[in-house]
C-alpha cells in the first residue's frame, strides 16, 4: 500500500512525500498516500470507530468506463472527439458545417448530449451517418455533463464498424464536462467571440484540458469590442499548447481548418 505502514497493533501511519517538485497525478495513483496534519492516526481517537483505508479516486469508476469506450472505438477504428462549449457558442451549427464538409469523405457519427430535447439531433440527422441522442434529463438525473457510462450507453446504439469519426457533442457548460473523461481520443471546445476575452481565465479547468479551441462567430467581430489578442494571451496563459482555429460557422470561415484538425 505505497507509503502506508500497518503495524502489528493495527495502527496505520502515512509518510509525507519528501521529493520537492515531483509531478503528481493523484487520480492515477490510487496507492499514493497523503499526510494530513489534522487526520493522522485515528485508531483509538473515538471508542467504537475503526479506520479503513480506501485510497480510491472518485473518478475511478468513470475513468474505467472511459477506457472501455476508447477500447471499443479503437477496435472499430473510430477516432472520437469530445466537443465542449458554453450554451449558444454555435457548436451545433459548426457540427452541421463539419458534416457538410465531410459528406462523402468520412462516415461521421454523432453522440448528442442534450438536457431535454431532440432539437439539435434533428438538425444533424440526415447529415450524419448515425446519430445517438442522449437526453441527460431523462433517466440520468438531469446531468450538466456527459460521463463515460452515458457515452457507453450511446455507443451501444451505434454501429461503430460503419464509422470513421465520432463527434461527441457534450452538454453546453464550461464547468462540469471538463471533469469527465468520456473515452474520446481528443478534446475540442468552441468559444465564441460574444462570450468575451476573459473566459479562459474564468474557466481555466475547461480551457486547460482541451487540444484545440475553435474561436467561433468571427463574422461578428466588427460589431464587438472583443480583443482577439487578449483572448489568445489569456488562453496561452492557461493552455500554451492548445491549437487555435478562428472560425465562423455562419460564413464558413475556418471550417476547412477545423475539419483538417478533426481528420488529422
Amino acid at each position, binding site marked *: 500500500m505505497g507509503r502506508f505502514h500497518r503495524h502489528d497493533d493495527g495502527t496505520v501511519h502515512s509518510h509525507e512525500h519528501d521529493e*520537492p*517538485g*515531483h*509531478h*503528481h*497525478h*493523484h*487520480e492515477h495513483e*490510487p496507492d499514493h498516500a*497523503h499526510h*494530513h496534519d*489534522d*487526520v493522522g492516526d*485515528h485508531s483509538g481517537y*473515538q471508542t*467504537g*470507530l*475503526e*479506520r*479503513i*483505508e*480506501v*485510497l*480510491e*479516486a*472518485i*473518478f*475511478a*469508476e*468513470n475513468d474505467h468506463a472511459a477506457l472501455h469506450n476508447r477500447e471499443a472505438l479503437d477496435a472499430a477504428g473510430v477516432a472520437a472527439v469530445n466537443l465542449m462549449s458554453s450554451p449558444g457558442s454555435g457548436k451545433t451549427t459548426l457540427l452541421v458545417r463539419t458534416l457538410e464538409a465531410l459528406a462523402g469523405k468520412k462516415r461521421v457519427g454523432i453522440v448528442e448530449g442534450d438536457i431535454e430535447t431532440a432539437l439539435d439531433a434533428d438538425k444533424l440527422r440526415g447529415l450524419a451517418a448515425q446519430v445517438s441522442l442522449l437526453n441527460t434529463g431523462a433517466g440520468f*438525473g438531469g*446531468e*450538466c*455533463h456527459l*460521463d463515460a457510462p452515458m457515452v457507453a450507453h450511446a455507443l451501444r446504439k451505434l454501429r461503430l464498424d460503419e464509422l470513421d469519426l465520432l463527434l461527441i457533442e457534450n452538454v453546453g457548460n464550461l*464547468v*462540469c464536462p*471538463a*471533469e*469527465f473523461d468520456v473515452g474520446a481520443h481528443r478534446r475540442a471546445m468552441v468559444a465564441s467571440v460574444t462570450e468575451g476575452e476573459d473566459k479562459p*481565465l*474564468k474557466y*481555466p*479547468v475547461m480551457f*486547460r484540458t482541451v487540444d484545440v479551441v475553435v474561436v467561433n462567430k468571427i463574422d461578428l467581430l466588427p460589431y464587438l469590442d472583443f480583443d482577439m489578442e487578449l483572448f489568445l494571451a489569456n488562453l496561452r*496563459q*492557461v493552455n*500554451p499548447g492548445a491549437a487555435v482555429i478562428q472560425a465562423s460557422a455562419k460564413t464558413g470561415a475556418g471550417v476547412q481548418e477545423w475539419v483538417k484538425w478533426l481528420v488529422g
Partner: protein
Amino acid sequence: MHELALSRSIKNIVTKAAGGRKVVEIWLDVGSLRQVIPQTLTHCWAIVAQPTELAGSQLRINEIPAAVHCYVCGQDAQVDVFSLYRCPNCDSDRVAVIAGEEFAITHIEVEA
C-alpha cells in the same frame, strides 16, 4: 453542479469498502482545481446517502490548495486557481502543477 454524480460514485466506492459495516465518516482529499464546491458536495451526499445504508454518514473534506513547481527558480509555491502557469516567486511560466488535482476517498471510519 456535478456534485450529485460525484456523490453516486462516492456511494459505490464506500459501500464496497465498508463491507456491510456502519459508516460514520468518509474522508476525502479534494484539490482546489477540481471545481467541486465542498458545501454542495456535502448537501448532495446527504440526499444520495439518505435512502441507503450510508444514511447519516458524514463527509469530511480535506481541501488541498493548488501548487506549482517552477523549473526556473526551482521552488514549489501555492498558487491561486486563476493564476496557474505562473511562478509567484520569479514570474516564470515554466511551471508544472504539483497539487490541486486530488479527488479521492482516503479512508472511512466505521463502527467497530
